[in-house]
């Protein structure tokens, strides 16, 4: 019987496009393995296939249906009330007046981005830092705006360049345009760039690798190996941990309908503060004095001493 049961993860786009989605895949697989059931991943491409995939997961009586991203807000809001026996986990967004079978895991990306900004500012020799986003959607402002905030907080005289957006036909997968943007920021004096551009990040890394003294900060997973020596650090979004934990909580009946993950909960992390930073391959590993400052700042964020506004709420 157990073999017929599957946990289903529905992604908004093809998994290859975004490391973040790959984390979700790892997460659902971990959760399924823990329960001895199968994990299925349905990749959508557009609103109607997303809805079809969620519907299909419901139809196959999956006890747990996890979905990733804002794209699913409306879909879950529509389908969850009609299917009370299916438990839904939404990553990244919550729906207002959610029915009982909907759980959401949201992240306070602004916290990690804030730390990244601080780190960039503290290590910058040119006193100029920048951030490159894939697409000007409200969600990504959590990264870009908070990065700027963190940089300014760490070092008042730092110059944060206006955010560059990749845009174009394929913003999440256009390394060439990303490289151009990065080169432009570098030529404008930046020597630290936070790459918030998913599949386009490679272009940013290439640009900093080519310029002496310039470094980038990676996104969602440890990207320091992508351009050894040119990646300062990465912000991690631990969907691979949060998702199985949430599912476990649902099964145990201990899960709360809305959980927010940040630095305190270990849902987000700047690699610099990790215990295994030494083996991370990130440049920051060789700058213990900066790590100390960052850890200090992290403690203040966790304690609430530093309050970081949510750019999306504005």
């Amino acid at each position, binding site marked *: 019987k157990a073999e017929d049961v599957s946990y289903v993860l529905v992604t908004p786009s*093809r998994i290859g496009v975004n490391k973040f989605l790959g984390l979700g895949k790892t997460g659902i697989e971990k959760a399924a393995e823990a329960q001895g059931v199968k994990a*299925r991943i*349905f*990749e959508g*491409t*557009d*609103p*109607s*296939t997303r*809805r*079809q*995939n969620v*519907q*299909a997961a419901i*139809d196959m009586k999956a006890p747990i249906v996890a979905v990733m991203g*804002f*794209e699913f*807000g*409306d879909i879950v809001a529509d389908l969850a009330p009609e299917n009370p026996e299916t438990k839904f986990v939404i990553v*990244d*967004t919550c729906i*207002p007046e959610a029915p009982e079978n909907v759980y959401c895991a949201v992240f306070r990306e602004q916290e990690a981005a804030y730390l990244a900004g601080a780190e960039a500012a503290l290590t910058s020799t040119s006193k100029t830092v920048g951030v490159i986003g894939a697409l*000007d*959607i*409200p*969600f990504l402002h959590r990264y870009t705006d908070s990065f700027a905030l963190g940089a300014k907080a760490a070092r008042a005289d730092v110059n944060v360049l206006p955010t560059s957006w990749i845009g174009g036909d394929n913003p999440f997968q256009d390394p060439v345009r990303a490289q151009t943007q990065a080169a432009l920021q570098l030529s404008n004096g930046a020597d630290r760039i936070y790459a918030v551009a998913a599949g386009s990040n490679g272009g940013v890394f290439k640009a900093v690798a080519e310029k002496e003294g310039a470094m980038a900060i990676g996104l969602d997973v440890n990207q320091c190996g992508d351009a050894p020596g040119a990646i300062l650090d990465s912000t991690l979004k631990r969907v691979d941990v949060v998702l199985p934990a949430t599912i476990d909580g649902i099964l145990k009946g201990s899960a709360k309908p809305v959980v927010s993950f940040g630095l305190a909960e270990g849902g987000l992390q700047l690699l610099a503060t990790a215990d295994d930073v030494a083996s991370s391959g990130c440049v920051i590993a060789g700058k213990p004095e900066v790590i100390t400052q960052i850890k200090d700042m992290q403690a203040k964020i966790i304690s609430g001493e530093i309050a970081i506004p949510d750019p*999306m*709420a504005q």
Partner: protein
Amino acid sequence: MTAGSLDTKSRLAAILLSIAVAVVLGGCVVLSTGANPLSVYLEIVKGAFAGRGLAETLARCVPLVGMALAVAIALRAGLVNLGGDGQMLVGGLAAVLVALYLPVPGPARAALALIAAMGAGGLYAWIAAILQLGLAIPFLIASLLMSYIARGVTSYLVRYPLRDPATGMPETHRVLSSARLPNAILDLPISMGMVIMAVVAIAVIVNDRSGVNGFEWRITGLNPRFAQYSGTNLPRQTQRVAFLSGALAGLAGALLILGQQYRFTDGALLAPGYTWSGLMAAVLAMASPVATVVVSVFFAALQVGGFAMERTLGLPAVLTWVLQALIILCLAARPVLFRKRRT
């Protein structure tokens, strides 16, 4: 009225043969991944037509048929409309604006939204026609360039002034249930969108076969000089056809928004590539409305079935693309298969 019946038969044979070839070729690709081609095809067919699949196929037909007919009616009259994306976007935006903000009762909002969408899409295409007539900018280029502009402008509007701050996406507020198009009529899995599109398709087909306007457009497409010499007012006709083509694209956008998505989300209308699928269907059908509808339905089934197959068999998703591409290439290559008949 052309002696087409015999021709239609052999054309149909050619299409069936090329699908068969594609199925065999696709089967080889599937085999190479170690999967069983028979079950792949079975799942595609089941996914497209069995259970919920049928409704989903029909739902996908709504925009696809709309966009394909938009291209077809223009093509029939000799205009190549590459601006479907833009016309669909302005149509969709107009629809959502009316549905969200016009202070009239719900159902009236939906109706007015559809009209506004057709007007907006039509006007957008009409501008491209005017650019061709007045300034000698080819319609094909003008409509394509205007598409990009519509993309940027709608994207800006839903990102900033029209944005619903409750979501993390650049998208408008959600249309109230009362202003949406019903998704099931008489408890059947038939949506209002399907009904509207069916009526439109029938109108286009009847007009093409028996209407004086359709006749005039078709002859113009065959030989504009002849049409002009026979007294057709070509500029006026170009404007009308462009308007109608754009209006159809706008309608497709509105039906997606009022019947499926309920809000205008940046990128959502264009993500499935309805414009290109539609162009492909219309060109394959040589702009004959009946054939255009048939080919569009086939594409819709193929796409829906492909996703279903992917889910049930867990095969690499891109396999569906490869299969689709092969089928399209074989369809396009049918003169190769039937080349003997040409000499």
